[in-house]
């Protein structure tokens, strides 16, 4: 029986969380909360610095998914990561979706909210992907307007994530890192640096990943994402596909270390969305990030002392 067992009791109202929206995530590693692991989290409460969820998965009216997250919000800081706001849509943001998300954030009071520099809505259809933008002055103005609209609707700042991409548009005139820096400057949003995305895009387009990192305003990076990617053969070439379906590869760990050298320790998420492994494997990946973060924190402490 679950009755009397505080850990498995279901929250029927918004919990009085100690992780209020004004605080920050710990400078440690967290994991994405995925369906196969929910029961383990509910029953065992394994240690991890924070949980990140896809906001759109919690926009049902009721049900066990939402209740489980209310329950977990008592013990873990939450980060809500959106995949459907479509900040790059020329037709602007969907006011119904903005309103639903605003209500969701008011209910759960996540510590962080984030979205992507991409688009997914056109002609009234949601295309279920993070589609690439041309980096032009027109697109820059548009994304800034949409980020402003989102931050106004939510009454708080969002973090904007650099995308992975498989193609570039000929008429792009602004390098992606500069484009992100300009949005950050103009809207006051924060940045979510996805190191795997930097690696994937750099490989796919023959760009310099370290130069990309250097072009970002390091102080604006408030969270880091790490993930694995797939390799899709194309003739005798290879395209890297950002599938979040495997362990973080060595090259991405190296780039993460380079990123941390620029930003200092930042809350770091392990994303693993397909071929989802045992929770212990996911937590072991997070521990690898933690070792790098702890090393950095210790080094900084010594430096200050």
């Amino acid at each position, binding site marked *: 029986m679950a009755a009397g067992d505080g850990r498995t009791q279901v929250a029927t109202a918004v919990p009085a969380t100690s992780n209020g929206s004004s605080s920050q995530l710990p400078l440690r590693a967290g994991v994405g909360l995925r369906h196969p692991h929910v029961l383990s989290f509910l029953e065992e409460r394994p240690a991890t610095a924070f949980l990140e969820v896809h906001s759109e998965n919690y926009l049902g009216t009721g049900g066990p998914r939402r209740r489980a997250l209310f329950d977990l919000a008592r013990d873990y800081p939450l980060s809500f990561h959106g995949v459907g706001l479509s900040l790059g849509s020329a037709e602007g943001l969907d006011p119904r979706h903005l309103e639903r998300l605003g209500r969701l954030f008011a209910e759960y009071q996540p510590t962080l909210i984030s979205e992507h520099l991409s688009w997914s809505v056109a002609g009234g259809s*949601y295309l279920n992907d993070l589609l690439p933008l041309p980096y032009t002055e*027109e697109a820059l103005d548009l994304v800034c307007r949409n980020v402003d609209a989102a931050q106004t609707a939510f009454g708080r700042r969002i973090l904007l994530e650099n995308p992975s991409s498989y193609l570039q548009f000929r008429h792009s005139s602004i390098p992606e890192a500069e484009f992100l820096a300009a949005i950050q400057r103009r809207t006051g949003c924060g940045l979510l640096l996805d190191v795997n995305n930097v690696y994937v895009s750099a490989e796919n387009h023959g760009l310099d990943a370290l130069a990309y990192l250097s072009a970002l305003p390091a102080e604006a990076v408030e969270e880091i994402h790490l993930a694995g990617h797939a390799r899709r053969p194309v003739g005798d070439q290879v395209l890297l596909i950002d599938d979040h379906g495997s362990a973080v590869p060595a090259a991405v760990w190296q780039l993460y270390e380079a990123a941390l050298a620029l930003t200092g320790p930042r809350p770091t998420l392990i994303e693993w969305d397909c071929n989802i492994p045992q929770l212990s494997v996911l937590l072991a990946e997070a521990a690898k990030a933690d070792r790098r973060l702890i090393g950095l924190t210790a080094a900084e402490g010594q430096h200050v002392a």
Partner: protein
Amino acid sequence: MSPEPTLAELQAQMRAALLGDDAVSLLDGVVADHIAPAARFASYTNNLEVGLTEVLEAAFPATSRLAGAANFRWAASRFALGHPPAEPRLLAYGADFPDWLADFGPARDKPWLAAVARLEWARNEALFAADAVPLKPEALAGLPPEQVPALRFTLHPSVRLVQADYPIHDLWLGEVDAAALLAQGGAQSVLVLRPAWQVVQLPVARGDAALLAALGAGASLAEAAGAALAETADLDLQQTLFGHLVRGSFAAVQQP
């Protein structure tokens, strides 16, 4: 080279190309290097098709099993490209799939597939429906018997009724070979609800389904009982009502 498209034009082009239209003008504007623009763009078309197909597979597992996984994936991808989601809540994606499947040429001689898909969509709706504390049997304790006929019940927000000319509950269960079930025939009415964490479903008599449908439409218990007995003359009303109170089919009761 064509003039630079506006962002709105580019997104309209890309939307059309992703959903199966000609990608020529879009690809004209894509950087060509060691990998051809068409091969690069194929990563996005593949993501869209596979991603939405997987969403439908997760929502309709029994339909997929009955159709055969490869057949289902093919049908689902046809549906996805013709009917992409209208909004980013993928938990709401697939509501139109059962009706589409009923009209889908290759499935037209297997109408039970769409019927099972309707049952699965009812389960999906129940899963994400509003939460409510079910009305307990004790709620009616001590009520003067003469007041019972005038009671009006509010169905639990997760309650869904699915009626079909096929044994959809048994087909969904999959414990007996589908061909044998279909040869045997038999219509089934199925009640789906989620009183707490779990979605539950059970086959009910036609009269029971009529009772719930009438109560859900605001009828009094006496009026609903009339509708129920018209469908199933020998329905044990007291037992049926008690069953609903025990399993949580109601959220509230209004006394006259």
